[in-house]
C-alpha cells in the first residue's frame, strides 16, 4: 500500500512539474514580450523593466526563478492587463468557484446515486426507461448549451430565477448546468454496477437468510456498487473545473472560471499561466486522492 502511494505521488509530482514546464515554455514561445503594450515605452524604461523582471536571463533560469517564486512565495506574478496580483485574483475567484463546484459535485453524486439505484432496482420498468432516456440526453448536451438555455428559459423568459449579482448570488442555475453531465454519468455508472452487484451470490445468500430488503440494498448492494463510482470522482472534478469556465462566463459569476476566460480573451499571459498551473495542480491532486481512496476501499485490488 505504502509503495503504491509513493509511486502514485511521484507520478503526480512529475505531472505537475511537466505541466508547469509546458505552461512556462509555451507562454514563452508567444511572440512579443509582456511589455509590448499599445503604449510605446522608451527604450530605457523597457530595459529597466526587463532588468527588473529578469527577462534577460536565459529561459531555463527564468523558468527556475518563476518556479522558485511560485512554490516558496506563492508569487504568481502580476496580471499584465489587470495589474492585480495573480494569486490574490485566483483566491478571490476561488471563493465563488469552490462553492459552485463543490455544490455541483454534491448534487451530481447524490442525485446520480439515487437515480442510478432506482433504475437498477426497477429494471425494465417505466422509471428505468425514464432514467436511461434522461441520462443519455444529458450526456449529449454541452454544458454551455445547457447553461445558456437555462438562463434563457428560467431567468429571462419566465423570470423565476433572478440573474446573478454579487450581492445576491443565486447558485441554482449554474449548479444545475455544471452538475448535469456528471450526474448523468454517475447515474449510468451506478446503474451498471448496481445491476452487477445485485446478481452476486452474496445478495442471494443475504436474501435467502431473510435479511430485510432495505438492508440488502444499502448494506450489501449499494456499498459494493459505490466502488466504480469513486473512480469517477477525479475526472468529475476535472470536468467541473473546465465546465465552470463557460458556465461562470455565461452567468457572469465573477469566479475563477470567468477570470480565466477573460484572461484568454485579453491574452493576459501571466494570468493564464498562473491559473493553468493552479487548476492543473488541483486536478492532479484530485486524481491522486481518488486513486488512493479507491485502492483503500476496494479490498479486491492488490497493491502492486
Amino acid at each position, binding site marked *: 500500500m505504502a509503495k503504491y502511494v509513493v509511486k502514485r505521488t511521484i507520478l503526480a509530482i*512529475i505531472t505537475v512539474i511537466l*505541466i508547469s514546464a509546458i505552461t512556462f515554455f509555451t507562454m514563452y514561445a508567444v511572440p512579443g514580450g509582456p511589455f509590448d503594450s499599445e503604449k510605446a515605452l522608451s527604450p530605457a524604461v523597457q530595459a529597466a523593466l526587463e532588468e527588473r523582471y529578469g527577462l534577460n536571463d536565459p529561459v531555463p533560469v527564468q523558468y527556475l526563478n518563476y518556479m522558485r517564486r511560485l512554490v516558496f512565495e506563492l508569487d504568481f506574478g502580476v496580471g499584465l492587463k489587470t495589474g492585480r496580483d495573480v494569486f490574490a485574483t485566483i483566491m478571490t475567484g476561488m471563493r465563488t468557484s469552490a462553492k459552485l463546484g463543490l455544490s455541483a459535485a454534491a448534487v451530481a453524486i447524490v442525485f446520480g446515486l439515487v437515480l442510478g439505484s432506482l433504475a437498477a432496482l426497477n429494471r425494465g420498468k417505466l422509471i428505468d426507461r425514464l432514467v436511461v432516456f434522461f441520462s443519455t440526453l444529458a450526456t449529449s448536451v454541452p454544458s454551455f448549451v445547457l447553461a*445558456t438555455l437555462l438562463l434563457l428559459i428560467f431567468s429571462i423568459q419566465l423570470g423565476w430565477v433572478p440573474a446573478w449579482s454579487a450581492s445576491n448570488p443565486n447558485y441554482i442555475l449554474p449548479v444545475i448546468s455544471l452538475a448535469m453531465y456528471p450526474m448523468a454519468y454517475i447515474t449510468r455508472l451506478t446503474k451498471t454496477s448496481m445491476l452487477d452487484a445485485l446478481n452476486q451470490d452474496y445478495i442471494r445468500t443475504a436474501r435467502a437468510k431473510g435479511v430485510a430488503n432495505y438492508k440488502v440494498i444499502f448494506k450489501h448492494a449499494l456499498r459494493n456498487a459505490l466502488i466504480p463510482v469513486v473512480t469517477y470522482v477525479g475526472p468529475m472534478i476535472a470536468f467541473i473545473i473546465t465546465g465552470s469556465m463557460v458556465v461562470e462566463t455565461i452567468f457572469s459569476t465573477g469566479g475563477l472560471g470567468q477570470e480565466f476566460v477573460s484572461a484568454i480573451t485579453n491574452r493576459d499571459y501571466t494570468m493564464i499561466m498562473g491559473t493553468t498551473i493552479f487548476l492543473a495542480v488541483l486536478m492532479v491532486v484530485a486524481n491522486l486522492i481518488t486513486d488512493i481512496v479507491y485502492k483503500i476501499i476496494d479490498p479486491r485490488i492488490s497493491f502492486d
Partner: protein
Amino acid sequence: MTEKMPKKNLFSSQINLSKFTPASEDEKRQKEVMSESTTFFKDGMKKLMRNPLAVGSIIVLVLLIVTIIVAPMIVPYGYEEINNIDGRRDRTAANLGPFQYSETEQQWMEETGESRFPHIFGTDSLGRDYFMRVIYGTRVSLAVGFFASILVMIIGVLYGSIAGYAGGKVDLIMMRICDIIYSLPDLLMVILLSVVLDETLGSAIEGTVFASLGSNMLALFIVFALLYWVGMARLVRGQILTIKENEYVLAARTIGTKPPRILRKHILPNCLSVIIISVALQVPSAIFTESYLSFLGLGVSAPMPSLGSLANSARGALTSYPHQLVFPAIMICLIVLAFNLLGDGLRDAFDPKLRR
C-alpha cells in the same frame, strides 16, 4: 456386416460394430445446418440493425450528412455572404426571424414579381443567411470530429500496437509516457496550446493550404494529435497483450512471419471491433471539445462558422433573438446524441465480452 469384422482380441478396446446401426435419413437431416454460415461482422451488423436506437441514429446521421452536402447546392446564399439584392447590400436584412423577408426584399419581390429563396432560419446580426451558417457550422464541426478521431486512431493504434507487441522494457517505458500524458488535464492544455499556437502559427502558415483552415483549427488538430491518442493506445495495447498469446499467432511466428505482418494480418483485425467502437465514441467527444473551444473564442476563425462559435455569438442577443441560439444548440445535441447512441449500439453488437 459381421463377416467383415476383424477378429476381436481379448481385452482390446476395439469397438464391436455389430452393436451399432446406420443412421436413418431422418436422423441425418437433423445434422444439416439450416441457417447460412455467418461471420463475426455479419452477425454484429444483424444485432446492430435490430437495435432501434442505433438504426435511428444512423438514419439521423445519414440525413444530416446528405443535408450538409445538398443544401449548399440548393440554397442560393453563402455562409459569409451578407444578404444583397443584385449586388446592393440589404441593410434591412439583419436579425430576421425564420422564413421572414426583409423590407427591401419584399419591395423587390413586389416590383419584379419574382420570388426569393426564404431564409429558413432567418438571418444573423450582419444579415447573413442563418440556415447556411448553421449548415456550414455543422460541416465544420463534423469534419473536426471525424478528422480528429481518425488522427487519434492512427497514432493510438500505432503506438499501442508497438507497445503491446514489443512487450517488456519497451512496453514499460512507452506506457509510462502514456501515464504521464494521461494525467495531464487535457482541456486546460488544449486551451493553453490553442492560445499559444494561435499566436505563433498565424504567420507561419500564411499562403499555404492550412491558411484556409485557420491557425485555431490547426492548433486544435495538433492538440488532439498530441494529447488524445493515449486512451486509444492503452485500449489497443491491452487488446494486443491478450491476442498475441493465441495459438495462431504462435503458429505464424513459427513459420517465420515478420512482426509487422503478424500485427496487420492476425492481431489488428481481431481488435478492430474495439477500435471502431472507440472511434465512434471519440467523434462526439471531439465535437464537444471543438464547440467548447469555439465557445471560448479559440475555435475556427471568422467568418468560418462552427456550431460552438454560432452558439457563442448568439449569446449577445439572447433576449431578442433566442432562435439564433436554439438552432446550433439543437444541432450539436443531435449530432452528439446520435454518435453516442450509435457508439453504444456498436458496443452492444460487436463487443463479444458484453454479449450475454
